[in-house]
C-alpha cells in the first residue's frame, strides 16, 4: 500500500532550490524535454500545472473514497434495519416497523457515508504518501516548509543525461542554489 517511490530513504539527490513557481515550472518543463526522471517537487503551496508537467498520473484516491462511501451507506442501512426492524422493533411516531420506514434511515445512512469516507480518505491518504505513524519522514531541506520550492532529482544510472548537465539546466532556469543531498545548509535565518 505504501508507495515506495515517494520514500526518500538513502537515495542520492540533486536539489534545485527556487523561490518562484514560474521558474520551477520552466525548469521542470526543460528537464522533462530531456526525459529526465524527476523524483518530486516540494512546494509550500499548490502550483498549478506542476503535476501535469511532472507527468504524474491521476490518483486513485477517489475510487477508495467511493468504496468507503458505499460501505458507509450499506453499514448505515444494515445498522438501522437490524436495530429498528429485526432485533428490537419499536414503534416511533406510529410508523410501520418494516422497510417502509426507510425515510428515517436516511440520516443515519448519510452520516455513516460521510464518516466512513472521511476516515477512509485520511487513512488512505496518509498511508499512500508514507506519512502514516511510525514512518520517519526525511525532509530534504527545511526551507521547503517555509518559502522555498525544491526540485529533487535522483542521481542514478537511469537518467538520460549526466548529473552536470542536469545541474546546468537547473542553473539556467534561475535556481537560487543547487545542492547535493546532505550537504550542509548555508542559511542564516
Amino acid at each position, binding site marked *: 500500500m505504501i508507495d515506495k517511490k515517494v520514500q526518500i530513504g538513502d537515495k542520492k539527490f540533486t536539489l534545485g532550490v527556487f523561490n518562484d513557481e514560474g521558474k520551477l515550472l520552466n525548469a521542470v*518543463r526543460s528537464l522533462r524535454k530531456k526525459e529526465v526522471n524527476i523524483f518530486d517537487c516540494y512546494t509550500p503551496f*499548490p502550483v*498549478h*500545472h506542476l*503535476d*501535469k*508537467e511532472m*507527468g*504524474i498520473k*491521476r*490518483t486513485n484516491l*477517489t475510487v477508495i473514497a*467511493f468504496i468507503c462511501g458505499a460501505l458507509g451507506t450499506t453499514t448505515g442501512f444494515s445498522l438501522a434495519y437490524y436495530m429498528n426492524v429485526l432485533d428490537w422493533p419499536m414503534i416511533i*411516531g*406510529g410508523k410501520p416497523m418494516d422497510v417502509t420506514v426507510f*425515510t*428515517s434511515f*436516511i*440520516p443515519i445512512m448519510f452520516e455513516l457515508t460521510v464518516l466512513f469516507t472521511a476516515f477512509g480518505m485520511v487513512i488512505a491518504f496518509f498511508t499512500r504518501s508514507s506519512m502514516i505513524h511510525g514512518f520517519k519522514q526525511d525532509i530534504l531541506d527545511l526551507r521547503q516548509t517555509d518559502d522555498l520550492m525544491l526540485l529533487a532529482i535522483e542521481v542514478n544510472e537511469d537518467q538520460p543525461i549526466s548529473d552536470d548537465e542536469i545541474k546546468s539546466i537547473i542553473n539556467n532556469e534561475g535556481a537560487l542554489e543547487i545542492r547535493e543531498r546532505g550537504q550542509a545548509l548555508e542559511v542564516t535565518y
Partner: protein
Amino acid sequence: MGHHTITEITEEKYHFNGRSKMIAIVLLVLGLVLAGIGAMQVQNHWNDAQTEEVATEHAEGAHHNETPAEHHGEAAGEHEAGTHDEHGANWMSRVWANLLMNSYYFLLFAVGALFFLAVNYVANAGWATLLKRIAEAMTSYIAVGFVILFAVIVLAKDQFYHWVTYFDQGLAPGDAGYDGILESKSWLLNSTSLYFLIPFIVIVWYGIRMKLRQNSIKEDQEGGLGYFRNSIRWSAGFIFFFAFSFSALSWLVIMSIDAHWYSTMFSVYNFAVTFVTSLSVMMMILLYLKNKGYMEMVSDEVVHDLGKFMFAFCVFWGYIFLGQWLLIWYANLPEETVYFAARLEGIYRPMFFVNIFMCFLLPFLVLMMRNAKRNPLVLLVAGLLILVGHWVDVYLMVMPGVVGDHASIGLLEIGTTLAFAGLFIYIVLNSLSKANLYAKNHPYILESANHDVGP
C-alpha cells in the same frame, strides 16, 4: 500535456442562421398544434369520463345505501383535509395548469441564469467568465416568460387558486364555510399581491438584468474596471432582493395552489429547482455551441467545473427535498401531510418516485466520476435527465391542486412543453447572436480562459 497560457481573447459571434431558427420555430408550431389536438382530446375524454363517473356514483350510492353516515363522514374528512381544491376542475383547468407550469418552469431557467451572473460578480469568481454571455442571453427570456406567466395567472386565477373564490365571498367568523387557515394567510394571499407584488418583483429583476447587460456590452466597447465595479454593486443588491422576492413569488404562484398547506421549505425547494435547471440549460447551450464549432476557448476545465456545479446542485435539491419530506413525514401533522398525501396516490405515485430518481439518484451516480464531467455525451444525458426530472417536479407541484385525479400526461402536456421550448430557444439564441460570445474586456476573462481544476 504542455500548457500554453492564453494571453488574447479572440472575437467571436454566434450567427443565428436559418437552420437553427427553423428548428426553434418548428418546435414552437409543432408544440402548438400538438397542444391543440391534445386539448381537444382532453375535452372529449373529459365529457365521456364525467358521464361515466356520474353513472358509477349512482350505482355505488344504491349499493351502499345501508351506510350513508359513513360515506358522509368520509366526504367531510376529505373536505377538511383540503383535497377539495380540484372540485371545480373542468377540461380547461388542465389546459391552464399546463400553461402555468410551463411558463413558470421556463421562467425559472432565466431567473436562475440571472442569479448565476450575480453570484459570479459578488463572489469575484473568474472561472465562468467565458460563459457569461450564455447566461446573459438566457436572462433575456425573463420579459416574455413573465408576460405569459402573468397573463395566465390573471386570466385563470380562479382555476388555480381557490382562495381567490373564497375571499370573494367575504365571510365573517361564524359563517358557514368560514376558513380560519385561509383567513390567517390573507395578508399575503390577496389581489394586491397578485396584481402588484408579482409584477413588481419581476420588473425589478428585469431592471437589474438590463443594467448588468448594458454594463457588459459597454465594457466590451470601452473597457475599464468601472463597469465591472458597478455590476458588482447591482449584483449584490439583486441577491439581497432575490432572496425575499423569489420566496414571495414561489409562494404566490405555486404554493398558493395548495393554500391550506404549510411548508417553510417550499421557497428553498423552488430555488434548488431553479438553479440546477438553469445550470443544466446553460450546459446544453454550451454543448450545442461547442458542437457547432463556437466557443473553442472554453476548455474542458470550465466544462468540468460547470458539470461539478450541476452535480452539486443535484445533491442540494436532494437535500432540500429530504429536508421538506422527512420533517413532514416524521411530524405527521394533517395540515402538512395533505400535500404529500395527494402526491402519493393515483397517477402521481409513480411520478413522485420518477422525480426522485431523475433529479437526484441518477444524475448523482452519472455525474460522480471525473471523466463523466468531461464527456459531452454523458453531460448531455445528465442534463436531459435533470431537465425532464424537474419538469415532472413542477408538474407535481401544480397538477394535483388544479386538476386532481383527472391529470395524465398526453399530447397536451408534450405539446405545451415543446412550444415553450421552441419559444425559449428562439429568444435565447436570438439574444446570444446580438453580442460577442466572449465578454472580451471583462477583467477575469483570461483567468477563465486559463482555468485549471487540477488533476
